[in-house]
């Protein structure tokens, strides 16, 4: 900052071009000092004992990119479903998560998730993970550099709060949303992730071989869905809901988004094996089968119920299937994935019908698909676990059976629901009281694009 002020002091004597270059060089020096400061303390970084498995690393790098691709995918999916005055605001809800959560992840998120348990196991911490400064030379036992693992995991932390935005689309202040997702990520996502995926997390160690959550059924989808529901109920409906018809502005970009999500999900699920081998292949196959079954099931149900097969229904079915197979991808065979995809579409369809009856405004069905689909997947997967997994589990704990595992799954789901609902309620309340979470009526009528971004998505399309 000192450099910056020196530059500012000289401004009076320079022409505008010089001023600009001084300003830039001041900023550069400032950034450099921060970088040097951060590097100076990382000299003790531990040397790697394991060697790099290039195959696994190559696939994990690819997966990392694929999962990141899901965030623009989600932006497109949600962006197409809102009215044309809210497109940029809705897209920004996903994009801004890429910025905020990535930075938070490097500073503290990775440590809170994957450090050693502290505070009685509520979260993790490891001083080496602060600014990722101590993992510079680390290679995990899986043969993957720790940077790759950390960046891969950060994508999950990014997409989870972005999913919540679907529940309260078209009616929240941008500033309050940014503050909400930053704190939500630290208080809800990071602890849950620690419990479920860190080797000393308590849900990871429940029962014989732990609660099964292969790629984030509880951590990502249930937590986001339930939090979305709580926030939507607290904030209330959009103006005019449900009497005014609110139509999607562009289903083409919604379909594009659904396609990107399907493609990205291969990184999400198959990448979660943190290897490039048999487990990866099993997860990949299950993912494809569940998405396909989910999509056609939804279209068939809709065809029988409403008489028409909508494209949005097909896209919703893809998502329902993918969400349900997310916790299960590592343990089910294609037959099981098929059953999960089918069941998820049916259950999510019912959930959305019920929502319409109850009349609450979960605008883009973040709970209806991610919450309900995640719960269905995490519970039902128990009935389709492949034989070899059960054999291993009963070797670890004699007499382990399906019903005992079902209890563990239900416990994990229950904990995820209860924890995310409680913390989200407190957080939404606090953010709303301090910053005003819900848009004012004027801002909501004008649209998020105009009120918070000063932009418009399209030139001259249909009104509303």
């Amino acid at each position, binding site marked *: 900052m000192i450099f910056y002020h020196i530059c500012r002091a000289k401004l009076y004597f320079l022409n505008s071009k010089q001023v600009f270059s001084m300003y830039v060089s001041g900023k550069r020096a400032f950034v450099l000092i921060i970088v040097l400061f951060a590097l100076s303390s990382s000299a003790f970084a531990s040397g790697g004992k394991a060697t790099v498995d290039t195959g696994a690393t190559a696939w994990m790098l690819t997966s990392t990119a694929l999962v990141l691709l899901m965030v623009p995918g989600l932006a497109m999916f949600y962006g197409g479903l809102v009215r044309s005055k809210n497109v940029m605001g809705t897209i920004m809800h996903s994009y801004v998560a890429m910025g905020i959560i990535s930075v938070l992840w490097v500073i503290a998120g990775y440590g809170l998730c994957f450090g050693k348990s502290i505070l009685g196991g509520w979260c993790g911490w490891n001083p080496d993970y602060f600014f990722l400064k101590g993992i510079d030379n680390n290679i995990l036992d899986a043969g993957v550099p720790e940077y790759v693992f950390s960046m891969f995991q950060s994508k999950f932390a990014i997409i989870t709060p972005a999913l919540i935005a679907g529940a309260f689309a078209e009616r929240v202040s941008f500033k309050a949303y940014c503050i909400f997702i930053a704190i939500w990520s630290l208080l809800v996502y990071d602890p849950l992730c620690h419990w479920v995926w860190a080797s000393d997390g308590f849900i990871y160690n429940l029962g014989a071989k732990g609660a099964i959550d292969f790629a984030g059924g509880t951590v990502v989808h249930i937590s986001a869905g339930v939090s979305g529901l709580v926030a939507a109920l607290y904030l209330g409906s959009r*103006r005019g809901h449900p009497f005014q018809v609110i139509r999607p502005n562009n289903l083409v970009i919604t379909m594009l988004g659904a396609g990107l999500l399907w493609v990205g999900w291969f990184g999400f699920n198959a990448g979660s094996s943190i290897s490039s081998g048999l487990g990866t292949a099993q997860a990949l196959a299950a993912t494809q089968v569940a998405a396909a079954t989910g999509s056609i099931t939804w279209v068939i149900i809709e065809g029988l119920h409403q008489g028409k097969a909508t494209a949005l229904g097909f896209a919703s079915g893809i998502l329902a299937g993918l969400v349900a197979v997310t916790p299960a991808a590592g343990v089910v065979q294609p037959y099981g994935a098929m059953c999960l995809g089918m069941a998820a579409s049916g259950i999510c369809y019912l959930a959305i019908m019920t929502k319409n009856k109850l009349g609450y405004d979960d605008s883009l069905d973040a709970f209806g698909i991610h919450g309900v689909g995640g719960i269905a997947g995490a519970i039902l997967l128990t009935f389709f676990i492949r034989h070899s997994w059960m054999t291993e589990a009963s070797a670890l704990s004699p007499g382990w059976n399906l019903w005992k595992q079902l209890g563990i799954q239900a416990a994990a789901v229950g904990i995820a629901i209860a924890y995310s609902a409680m913390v989200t309620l407190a957080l939404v309340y606090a953010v709303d009281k301090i910053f005003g979470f819900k848009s004012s009526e004027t801002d909501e*009528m004008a649209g998020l694009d105009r009120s918070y971004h000063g*932009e*418009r998505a399209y030139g*001259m*399309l*249909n*009104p*509303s």
Partner: protein
Amino acid sequence: MKLITAIIRETQLDKVREALIAAEITRITVSRVSGHGQQRVEEIHRGQRVVPDLIPKIKIEIAVNDAFVDITIFTILKSARTSELEGNLGDGKIFITPLEECIRIRTGERGGSAI
């Protein structure tokens, strides 16, 4: 019969529609238009302030029988103003033109009953 054409702000469309529906005026045509008025707005593109020469507006067209002219005008005036008392530059205009004929395509009937 009159044709009432109202040019209003985009932001007021919801309010105007709700007010018209509440006043039982439900047959309207809405389009996006742009134009010059007295209003001046600034937008920001990559940190630079620009003043677009054409401002987006909404045009509402309503064909009404003479008895409904006053209530329609009153409703639009009340709902299209951005502040209760005097309104602001850019709130728009209402034009009223005589309507020679109105024909319902489905039945071919003409005049006031076709509106």
